[in-house]
């Protein structure tokens, strides 16, 4: 009896040990090869996907275009969301805000006020970091494609990929060189920005001095030359992509800066083939919001599903469109035109109506004051009902002051549309016409230039237009005036001022108190400093080789 029990006990123990051992064995198989699902994907997942769906490489090329319309790119870096952080269009507003043609309230709701006040130039500034990151992360996408796709490929699709990447990279450097240095002419040997290509190793990048302006332009031209040849015959599926004509347009811009007039004129001509400017009728209402317009050579095709749209107010219409149903503009921070510039626009010019005109009258104390605003572009009889009160255009949209832009229409041209899915122009035929006119004039053919200019303005903007100037410089200035109003708000004004070495005149017009001062041509404050993070991590740049810290100007 006892013996049996002892044996039973032993067997029990044996079972128990077996049980314990099996638990341990079972548990030994923990799976540690885990992958994310959805939020991000890893290199391994990417490689596996490329095996089963090689056509997904197109997605990487599309990254060249999505990289221009992304939001919250520096949220982690800054520690909180910045509402100006919505891609290339935001950079354009920063450039314009730093000039003399597009002004706004100096208020906390104006997310571009630091650019307007030149307090964003410093090395630790979030704006300079934003700009630097925008273009360098964008050209990283291009470099990755150039690294992956062999240069000697004969596959037409792969050639087109390379061509787009090269042109896209040229677009980035063309902006970087103008943000961090003055114009090409006269500054060819001045330090510009670091050059990073598909061949640059991380070690090289860590000790990468500022290339000269000349070196950067050499790369831009080389990339565009190659892009133009690679993109020959590439029929793009949509206008958000770069094709050969866009590459010509980019090279026209570069050649204009380099004052290679003949090349600029011929490139511009090639770029504009098949495109026609907006008609007077087209721009007799707020527009510039649809990539299908005949005048757009290249643009960002923004769909309602895009992050910048879903963000609500981290997008261009929220900041610039005066008729959006959702945004800072104009009730909190409107975008106004330089009053003097507006006054110089002829009454017969349809563009006069792109900004509101003050209506003068007597206020309650009998003093002369602005009592209303008007523009023929907007249906001033429009009303909306909110909490049982009826509001007109001016009250509802919160128009605070005259010279407010109505150039940019709301999405689908519906007033008060809360969806800010407006497409964004990147290159319009009008710009190419104006490049051609300027280049012809400066290249020794002012008569033809005058004809090109008059032809465009008379047909498409101001039927009674006559170009008063006839010499090259005079026509160049006239083209500049046309650019200032035609391309207002599209990010060109600051670089034009730098290229033409013009002063910035803000005093005596409608700039807010405290920033209504004038700056001489090529004022050093116009240059942003290379961001602190680059200076700290790049051995070859230090405070002494960065742009100088300049006192913020005051009245």
């Amino acid at each position, binding site marked *: 009896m*006892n013996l049996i*029990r002892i044996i039973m006990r032993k067997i029990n*123990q044996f079972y*128990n040990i077996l049980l*314990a051992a099996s638990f341990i064995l079972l*548990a030994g198989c*923990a799976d*540690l*090869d*885990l992958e*994310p699902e*959805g*939020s*991000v994907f*890893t*290199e391994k997942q990417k490689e596996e996907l490329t095996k089963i769906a090689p056509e*997904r490489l197109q*997605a*990487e090329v*599309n*990254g060249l*275009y*999505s990289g221009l319309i992304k939001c919250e790119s520096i*949220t*982690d*870096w800054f520690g909180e969301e910045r509402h100006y952080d919505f891609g290339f269009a935001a950079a354009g507003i920063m450039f314009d805000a730093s000039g003399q043609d597009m002004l706004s309230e100096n*208020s906390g*709701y*104006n997310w571009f006020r630091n650019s307007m006040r030149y307090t964003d130039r410093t090395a630790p500034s979030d704006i300079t*970091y934003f700009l630097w*990151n925008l273009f*360098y992360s964008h050209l*990283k996408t291009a470099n990755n494609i150039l690294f992956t796709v062999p240069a000697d490929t004969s596959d037409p699709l792969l050639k087109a990929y390379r061509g787009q990447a090269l042109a896209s990279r040229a677009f980035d450097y063309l902006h970087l060189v103008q943000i961090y240095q003055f114009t090409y002419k006269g500054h060819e040997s001045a330090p510009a920005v670091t050059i*990073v290509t598909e061949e640059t190793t991380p070690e090289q990048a*860590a000790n990468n001095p500022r290339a000269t302006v000349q070196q950067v332009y050499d790369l831009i031209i080389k990339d565009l030359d190659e892009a133009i040849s690679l993109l020959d015959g590439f029929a793009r599926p949509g206008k*958000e992509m770069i094709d050969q004509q866009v590459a010509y347009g980019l090279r026209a811009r570069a050649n204009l800066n380099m004052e290679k007039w003949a090349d600029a004129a011929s490139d511009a001509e090639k770029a504009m083939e098949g495109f026609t400017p907006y008609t007077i009728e087209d721009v007799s209402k707020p527009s510039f919001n649809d990539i299908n317009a005949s005048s757009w050579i290249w643009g960002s*095709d923004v*769909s*309602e599903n*895009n992050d910048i749209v879903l963000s609500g107010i981290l997008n261009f219409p929220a900041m610039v469109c005066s008729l959006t149903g959702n945004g800072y503009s104009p*009730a*909190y921070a409107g975008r106004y035109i330089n009053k003097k510039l507006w006054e110089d626009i002829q009454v017969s010019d349809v563009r006069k109506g792109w900004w509101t005109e003050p209506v003068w009258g007597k206020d309650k*104390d009998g003093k002369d004051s602005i009592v209303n605003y008007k523009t023929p572009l907007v249906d001033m009889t429009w009303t909306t009902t*909110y*909490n*049982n009160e009826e509001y007109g255009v001016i009250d509802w949209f919160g128009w*605070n002051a005259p010279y407010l832009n109505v150039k940019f229409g709301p999405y689908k041209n519906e007033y008060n549309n*809360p*969806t800010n899915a407006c497409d964004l122009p990147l290159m319009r035929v009008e710009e190419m016409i104006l490049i051609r006119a300027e280049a012809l004039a400066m290249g020794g053919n002012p008569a033809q230039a005058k004809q090109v200019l008059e032809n465009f303005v008379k047909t498409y903007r101001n039927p009674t237009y006559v170009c008063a100037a006839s010499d090259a410089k005079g026509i160049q200035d006239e083209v500049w005036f046309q650019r200032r109003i035609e391309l207002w708000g599209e990010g060109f004004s600051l670089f034009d001022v730098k290229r033409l070495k013009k002063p910035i005149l803000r005093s*005596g017009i409608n700039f*807010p*108190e*405290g920033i209504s001062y004038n700056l001489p041509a090529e004022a050093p404050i116009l240059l942003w400093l290379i*961001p602190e*993070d*680059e200076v700290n*991590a790049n051995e070859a740049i230090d405070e002494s080789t960065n742009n100088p810290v300049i*006192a*913020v100007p005051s*009245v």
Partner: protein
Amino acid sequence: MKRKLVMFLSLFLIGMGIAMAQTQVRGTVVDEDGESIIGATVQVKGTTQGTVTDLDGNFALSAPAGGTLVISYVGYATQEVAVSANPKVILITDSELLEEVMVVAYGTAKRSSFTGSAAVIDSEKISKRQVANVTNALSGQVAGVQVTRTNGQPGTTSTIRIRGIGSMAAGNSPLFVVDGVPFDGDISSINTADIESTTVLKDAASNALYGARGANGVILITTKSGKSREPKITVDVKWGSNRRGLSNYDVITDPALYLEKAYQAIYNGFLGTKDDNDVVRGPEESYQLANRYLPTNENGGVGYQIYTVPQGQSMIGMDGKLNPKATLGYSDGKFYYRPDNWYDELFKKDNLRQEYNVSVSGGSDKINYFASGGYLDDAGIVANSGFKRYSTRLNADYQAKEWLKLRANVSYTNYDMASPATQEGTSSANLFYVADYLAPIYPMYVRNADGTIKIDSRGYTVYDFGDRTGGNFNRTFMSGSNPASMIELDKRQYLADVFGGRWGLDIDLMEGLKFTYNLGTDFDNTRYSRLYNAFYGQYSRVGGIVYKGAYRTSSINHQQLLNYHKILNDVHSLDILLGHESYDYQYQYLMGSKEKLFNPEIVELDNAILNPTAESYTDNYATEGWLGRAQYEYDQKYIVSGSFRRDASSRFHPDNRWGNFGSVGAAWVMTQEDFMKDLDWVNFLKYKISYGIQGNDALLYNDGETNNYYPYSDQFTVKENNKDFATTMTYKGNKDITWETSYSFNTGFDFNLWNNKLSGGIEYFSRKTTDMLYYMPVPPSNGYATVPMNIGSVLNQGVEIDLRSDVFKTRDLVWNVFVNGTFLKNEIVELAPELNGELVSGSRIYKEGKSMYNLYIRNYAGVDENGVALYYKDTTDAHGNVIGQETTTEYNQATKYATGNILPTLYGGFGSSLNAHGFDFSVSFAYQLGGRMLDSNYQSLMHSGTTNNAGTNWHKDILNAWTAEQKDTKVPRLNAVDLYANSTSDRFLKSSDYLDLTNITLGYTLPGNLIQKTALGSLRVYLTADNVALWSARKGMDPRRSYTSSGGYRYSVIRTVSGGISIQF
């Protein structure tokens, strides 16, 4: 039947017994009150021979003469008595037992022989605090533990740092272990009333067994279990009210004074500048312009007119004072405007807090159980915010067989957290910002011309959003917002179902050898609802927005443990643990939104029609480890212990996944030595020393918050671009990334002197974190700005002192006090070699040999002869060497200087309790000394009236601003066009010392003789108050929130005063 079996077994064992003289023992087991204990186990030491006591507490067995009997019973301290004929054994209850045995990693340990450093906070301490979350009750309780309370919203968690901060880019939070199983869930789901004890493991000897996850310390939460044999029913009810626990800064409250200052800023902005005709503006013109712009949105104006002045007269006179004929209140014919006290309207209301807890616990010789239910409703301090929680728990263990014990702890919690949507930052939606920083001149309500508050056709109060949607003015501060309306009409809710299960079995394999299997699961399903209302505010223009989210967190943990315990010759005690653990974690996220609501009250997607969005993703994480521990004890005098864990984490590349961690420790109980026996004032004295290696795999993304589970790989995201895919690289990974390793050293004494007159410990610790997970900055021109790396090291070292004293102790009166303090020094030992010993990151500087908390900011130099702010700037010679210092008004050209360490050098807590004649009174404090912080909230209240600050309130210190009459000041003059008057500098660096009166409790327990006539066991009534007072360097500044700055504008800490009643049956 059972008894028969036991008897049979006993006989059987005796039958097998070794030949030895046997004594027939007949004894009794009673408790301290002399009541007999039924079912206590009586065992002959060193054998399996034993019995249990009968209904009268009696037992009988035969035992070897000269042997020892071990008597144990759940809830009582195990006792050993020498074998005698008729022993009477008195078992001492649990309360003293807690001092003896404590919960440690993968088991329990005798405190007296523990070689590591751990602190236990018992349930009584926690139950006094009115917190939904145990982390909020830890402040000041434990040496070495720092608590920062970033947010006062009920239900949120405090940030805990144990023995300093050891990581730059990885998580610094301790590991939470609930009932033996790592816990990544929401600590708020654990009812604090269910917590038996909270153990903080601080050194490597205590927590190296947690390998991968132990480097930042471990907090073990143990829930209650049944102890008494008789069922015990406890009912506790608390009822009280909440108020804002911290007042605002000393801001201007007089509208006239505010307007005068705003006027002064605009006036100064014009004075001396040139007009369009290049004529310098004089006082008269500046006076005219300032009056003109004051009620506008331009040039520093505030946007509102709230005073009526006689026709043709100006609001502010040439003397800078309000027109004496001005009367408060202004009507434009359609509306009437007068300021409201937003602070009072939003915060000066009492909000109810109520909490009900019921528990039943008990046990028999085979089963122990604890069951509880709780309901908490904490309304917070603002309307429509709060935390409601239903919690239930059943903990039980069952001795199924002699060799098999089953355990299960199962809890289910449902909570509903409603909160104002935005609780931090300078957002217009953040009522804590708007209410505290809004100038005292703005109306909160839209008023009809007759002065009555406007009510809309739906019956809603019409609030003034300051954007001309009601009223004709445009506020310059936070236009388009009105938090009062938003808390009335908007909604944000987290509705959570949290399930926690712990199942286990213990199998006695053979004498001293036990196999334990533990399965732990935690599931948290949270439903998120968000409504932006359709009627008022920014989103009313799109007809309202509804968001709906579902977050599911699950974790499954398996543990297989083998414990071996052996005592040889009564003096050699050996404990060995071998084990294996695996952990799987998954987080699933789903979120959708739609605009334009049909029924404005229903927060569901199907109730809205436009612009749908949807997103979802899943993250996966797992760890696996093999572990072992051995402890040898000689005669309860010398103890050595060692532990080892080999751990793997899925966060790392398969080549770098496994790491080895472990510790060694030793202790010497000096009071066991003969030479100490004569020192009868020394009751207990132990010296201990330990050293160990621990890991940390918790790499975060660059935001410092989000877990990064795949840092070894480049990461990409896919986006929509014109109806096609577009991918971009969003994260640069590094295949070589691996464990962050901490080397911890700990040594010190535990003591008990003069019979508890003084007890506690003193310890020195150092923790060196090497191979720090760190985001190495690379030139952003690469297209990415950082690469994760294992580089550099940080050293945290310090001394902890923990003292407790029963100052006075008699039958009727017990008075004790406690105090603890931690001296902490934090130092960066090594940075990446490329950095040459220094890394500047924004306003922080990381320097070898210096604290990780070292600000890099400009130094303030007062004001110049015009009242403009000055900053210091280094002057250099031709070679760039610094040769001196000068001052400049150009902030950007001023030099940045390191502030040196700003972390507090000493922190801790103290308190006292008094029990006398049924009354109990206790008070506890937390404190911190020797640190500094940027008082950035004060900074924003010291603006100079610039256009983008117009309408922001001022601290009363602005009255000291420079004027021509008041030149002896360091406060720059008011000026609407100034840029750098209140820029970040050491001017705003303020001592972060504080003293926090965390809790006061007063209770009365009815005398036993009164109670005995009723069915009650005991009855206690009490009053308790939390977050009673805070003393800091400046009124309104809360140094408990952060180590670096007061900023954030967050939900204020809550002061709660409650009355309660606690009954036991």
